[in-house]
């Protein structure tokens, strides 16, 4: 009895810890300007949507969200496609150099962004791909491939080789095996990897900051980080923008939480 009470209490504390700061921000976004400026801060807002209107229409939030969708979506699609191919090869063809490739990818994913930001900017500059969707998308593909390949390899490894070999013996070509046997089985894993890559590229800030300087195509993190200030910070609008920026991610996360946790821990436990 005492144990379950302690457990319930701990669970509550953990939930509050995770939710409270963000909840505070969301509540802020629903205040009126007067309530926002109240010192000491008012705890309960009236449901005022002015900040949301201002954030969406005066500050171009809708445009930022659109840009992020395009960039993150495209990068995820290509990254998962390319990554799946590589992961399949690595998981099926146990060659010495494939293992090395995997470790090299791990090492690469540890590079600090600053170490590659300058030259990446230079390359995009030469290609005239700065301030373009394809420029940033290409950079994102390269950045997310290590993560994608690692997770996908883990999932592909779980697809039993016997099933494939049976299909091959039955006369299917490799490509048919891929399409009809492997992909359906690995689909949950691929979806998980796609989700993780999407969230990763959606949240990316550093490269977006230096590559996208035209506000028409800037992504959401840059928009939120550089929210232009009135003489005092427009906290109401920032809170509203942040809420709008985060809610889709939260829904995605809650919906796919099992898969996400599996994906995150796949690397940790089995890698």
């Amino acid at each position, binding site marked *: 009895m005492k144990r379950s009470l302690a457990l319930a209490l701990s669970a509550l504390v953990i939930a509050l810890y995770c939710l409270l700061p963000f909840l505070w921000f969301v509540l802020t976004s629903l205040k009126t300007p007067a309530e926002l400026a109240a010192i000491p801060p008012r705890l309960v807002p009236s449901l005022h949507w002015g900040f949301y209107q201002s954030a969406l229409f005066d500050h171009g939030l809708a445009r930022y969200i659109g840009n992020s969708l*395009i960039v993150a979506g495209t990068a995820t699609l290509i990254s998962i496609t390319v990554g799946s191919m590589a992961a399949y090869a690595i998981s099926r063809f146990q060659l010495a150099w494939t293992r090395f490739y995997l470790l090299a990818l791990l090492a690469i994913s540890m590079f600090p962004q600053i170490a590659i930001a300058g030259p990446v*900017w230079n390359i995009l500059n030469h290609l005239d791909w*700065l301030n373009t969707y394809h420029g940033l998308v290409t950079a994102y593909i390269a950045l997310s491939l290590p993560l994608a390949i690692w997770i996908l390899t883990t999932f592909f490894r779980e697809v039993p080789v016997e099933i494939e070999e049976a299909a091959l013996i039955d006369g299917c070509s490799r490509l048919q095996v891929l399409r009809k046997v492997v992909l359906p089985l690995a689909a949950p894993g691929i979806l998980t990897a796609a989700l993780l890559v999407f969230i990763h590229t959606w949240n990316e800030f550093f490269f977006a900051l230096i590559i996208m*300087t*035209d506000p*028409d195509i800037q992504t959401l993190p840059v928009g939120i980080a550089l929210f232009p200030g009135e003489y*005092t910070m427009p906290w109401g609008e920032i809170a509203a923008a942040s809420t709008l920026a985060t809610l889709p991610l939260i829904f995605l996360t809650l919906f796919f939480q099992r898969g996400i946790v599996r994906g995150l821990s796949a690397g940790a436990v089995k890698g």
Partner: protein
Amino acid sequence: MRDLFCIFAILFCLLPQAVNAQATLLRAVISRTDTPQLWDDAIAEFEQQNPGVKVVKEIAPNSSTQFHDLLTQKLKNRDTRLDVFFMDVIWPSEFASAGWALPLDRFFSTTEQGKFLEAPIAANRYRGEIFGVPLFIDAGLLYYRKDLLEKHRMAPPRHWPELVDQAKTVLAAELDPHLVGYSGQFKQYEGLVCNMMEFILGNGGALWDEQRLVSAVQQERAKQAVRFVRDHIISEISSRGVLAYEEPESVALFAQGRAIFHRNWPYAWRVANDPEQSRVIGKVGMMPLPAFPGGKGASTLGGWQIGISRFSKIPEVAWRFVAFMTSHQMQKRIAFSTGRAPTRKALYTDPELLAQVPWLESMLETFKQAVPRPRTPVYAPLSNIMQRYFSAALALPGSKIDQRSALAARDMDRVLDLLRETAAP
């Protein structure tokens, strides 16, 4: 599937271009203002006078430092979707040297330049060419609570030590826990250099030796000034909070009636007399900054200019915008609405303007004598070094100013050495 993909991708790349095809888009990066209506109206008027041109404005971050970082990132990116930008008074040399700003001599004749105040024009020149048109001028000024000084029978201070004593007296007498003696900008950003330069120059010191291209912050007079600020201004009559203040926070403190003395640019006069923001309307006085005994009061030259990007595809249209914004009429309107000081000499004898903004006349001398910060393409790293030094010296009690200034001087000299190397300019 993959083909569909490519089409998709290409479409997205082309989409922005398609939208642009209709009007000539002039993209301007301007600083944040508390009178957006003024600019919107001006832009609307410009568009009326120039059919077929649409101005797209982008508001930059409030902090001059962040504005700089973002603007230079665009220019480095050779962003062709940037035509016109505001420049802080310290950027033209850097932008000119880096090849980001378009030389404006073919548009901006020397006769025309002669109609503007000298100091801002000089700030926009680099190696014989001009790279920006001054929009308004700023100089550091001292604001004070007339009512409090009168109440304690004090005349406005002429020296910094006198100011400190006056503040202490008033604080002791008023017994108001919310009142501080001094509000200025001491956060680690460009404004800190402006504030500190005024103290240093007021003590007979300097930031650098322009002739010999070496640093001067390690000299005794400069160090004395820094010590004074740390030990007297911040420790005795201010709160630690000022170490986090840029202009907005510091003027808010003064306008709320919580500071006796305040250092800021001319715009603060408007704020202090704005019924929506101020509780001290009619109680505020304004004067040139004090000096140290034996020295001369110095004011940092500030202000904003408009430049044209070298990568702009429509320089002629861009120039029309620049000319419009810096015209006699526009500057007068800006001065009327925002209290920002114009850069055209003629406006200082304009009776209409002076009726509305009377202090312009008395401040003209201060503007003419305002001292610019080092005008050099490497000002950005120099400023960062100085910001670092000043911030650490002021924020850390017991900071070793001798050591820190020596280190700052060493770093500044290394940067300045780069200028001595000549290759073809």
